[in-house]
């Protein structure tokens, strides 16, 4: 029974990772950049929803909606100001810029909100029992997992069925050819950042509901974890990010429960390395070959 309960809480954590990783992976697939500032968008979403609930007294759903709007705007603005001028620059320059943006967001948040930890309001409490009380499942885990599945389904439909989604796939396949087909690549990249950042806001609310503390560097660790999850599943692949996120959450929870809390970090990364050694482009990543 303990196993099942760990599995469910692992899937809950993994769902949060998966939602963040989806954003990471989409941005990578289309803009071909590692957006290290993605984690700090989560932080922005956490603060936005925190103040919406505490200062403005909004209900959870409204606060989440506000956070999504703000994060989307933030993501698109960052892309316009910092990344768009670097479209033709080396990937390292873009990486460094993303790191700069990450520092900027963290320190701006510290200036505006202070570096102290704020306690996120309790949004979804309680749990229900199964198997005659042997297994207790929190509502939050269920909501988180369901949210993640819905997002994943909606995103898959969007990518495969809509015109914009198809244009996105075209851009990730070959940007040059996409331009020749009359696709506005800049618009597609903006949309990608908008979706990724909106998802980060959702993840922020779910994350803070589970770990109710808000502070300026809150996004770093989930950011790195989600990046790991995206690579784990095959970066650029949407089902890969989903799978990678879930697996990472489960592995982390199991490692904490069965092996050691302090070493869970090392174990997660060790598993990642082993997976990459067996499948060098992640679980669902495409193999790339060079034409000679």
């Amino acid at each position, binding site marked *: 029974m303990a196993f099942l309960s760990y599995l469910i809480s692992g899937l809950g954590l993994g769902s949060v990772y998966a939602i963040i990783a989806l954003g990471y992976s989409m941005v990578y697939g289309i803009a071909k950049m590692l957006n290290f500032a993605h984690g700090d968008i989560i932080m922005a979403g956490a603060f936005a929803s925190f103040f919406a609930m505490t200062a403005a007294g909004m209900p959870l759903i409204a606060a989440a909606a506000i956070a999504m709007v703000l994060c989307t705007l933030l993501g698109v603005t960052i892309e316009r100001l910092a990344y768009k001028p670097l479209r033709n620059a080396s990937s390292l320059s873009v*990486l460094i810029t993303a790191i*700069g943006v990450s520092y900027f967001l963290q320190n701006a948040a510290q*200036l505006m909100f202070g570096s102290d930890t704020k306690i996120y309001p309790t949004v979804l409490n309680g749990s229900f029992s199964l198997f005659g009380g042997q297994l207790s499942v929190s509502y939050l885990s269920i909501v988180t997992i369901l949210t993640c599945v819905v997002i994943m389904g909606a995103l898959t439909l969007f990518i495969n069925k809509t015109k914009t989604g198809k244009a996105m796939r075209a851009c990730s396949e070959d940007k040059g050819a996409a331009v020749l087909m009359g696709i506005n690549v800049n618009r597609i990249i903006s949309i990608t950042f908008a979706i990724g950042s909106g998802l980060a806001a959702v993840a922020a609310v779910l994350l803070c509901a589970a770990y109710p503390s808000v502070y300026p560097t809150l996004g770093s660790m989930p950011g790195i974890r989600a990046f790991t999850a995206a690579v784990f599943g095959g970066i650029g692949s949407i089902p890969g990010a989903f799978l990678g996120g879930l697996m990472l959450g489960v592995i982390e929870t199991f490692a904490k429960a069965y092996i050691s809390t302090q070493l869970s970090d090392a174990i997660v990364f060790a598993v990642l390395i082993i997976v990459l050694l067996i499948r060098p482009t992640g679980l669902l990543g495409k193999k790339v070959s*060079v034409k000679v």
Partner: protein
Amino acid sequence: MKGLLNWLFGAKRRSRTISFMIVIVSYIVLSLMIASGSLSRLMISLLVPVCAYIVAALGLNLNVGISGELNLGQAGFMSIGAFTAVILSGIFSANGMNPVLILLICIIAGAVMASVIGWLISVPVLKLQGDYLAIVTLAFGQIIMSLVNNLYVGFDANGLHFAFVTNTLELAEGGKMLISGPMGATGVSTASTFTAGFILVLCALFVVYNLIDSRSGRAIMAARDNRIAAESVGISVSRTKTLAFVISSCLAGAAGALYALNYSSFVATKFEFNDSILLLVYVVLGGLSNMSGTIISTALLVILPEMLRFLQFYRMLIYAVVLIVIMLVSNNEWLKVKAEQLKKKLTGKRKGVQQS
């Protein structure tokens, strides 16, 4: 004498002579400033860390610039060097050994330890390419930090004692803890000096430049420029990438040892992901494959946040803005064209003068 100078500085590459000159002149100027008391205490305290970061960044530039592989775990190798040094210095200083000798042994041991681990890691890992390699180096950096963070080492009359995750060490009378898990290294007897840092920087430059101008260096750069062509002329790409990675780790290990013996105590999280990223920032801002650039940008960027302390909370914000603006300006097409024109104008004029 001339032969010796040539051996040291090499006549062939101008950039090499310039790098050595920058380091030597800075050392002389800074030493004079220390002697005349015109250097603030804060600045003096930064000299050894700056040297350590320069050495680690030079190694990283070998990896990222010359070999062309992104490495997000350089701080992890500094960590290996640092904690190796802490253990050894704990043993030797208990025996009352000369601090200079301790420092020398620790730097060599730190470098060797980091090279060995770098080599073990590189053999499977360098099969990966591009961003996948980057994430694995990141992962290794995190693993190393996490392991050191749970390591307990003590030294007493019976020798060294190790424990992992929980501190179960029971040291004999007169023994002392060298590494205490999350509390990090404690009671280190400091041995690093600015002169030692200066010599280490010179050694690092010597190693890096001599490697670049050799068979191995050419192979490393060839594998970076065109993997397939490199194999077509009989170069084993994986071997050359490993070599660059190992030497880069080696320099980071030496740098870590120098850094460690500058402080009486420090924690494992001193070498975390953010520090690997900072080292990468130094290298990219200084210019890939440009060693003089790495030296200057490392020194400036380590000192800059300290200089901005009077701005208090705004300093890291400004630091971030500086980073972004530098990247945007240095990659601006319009500015690039203008700079090229200006350069042509200037060199053109000089030629004109020579003709007349």
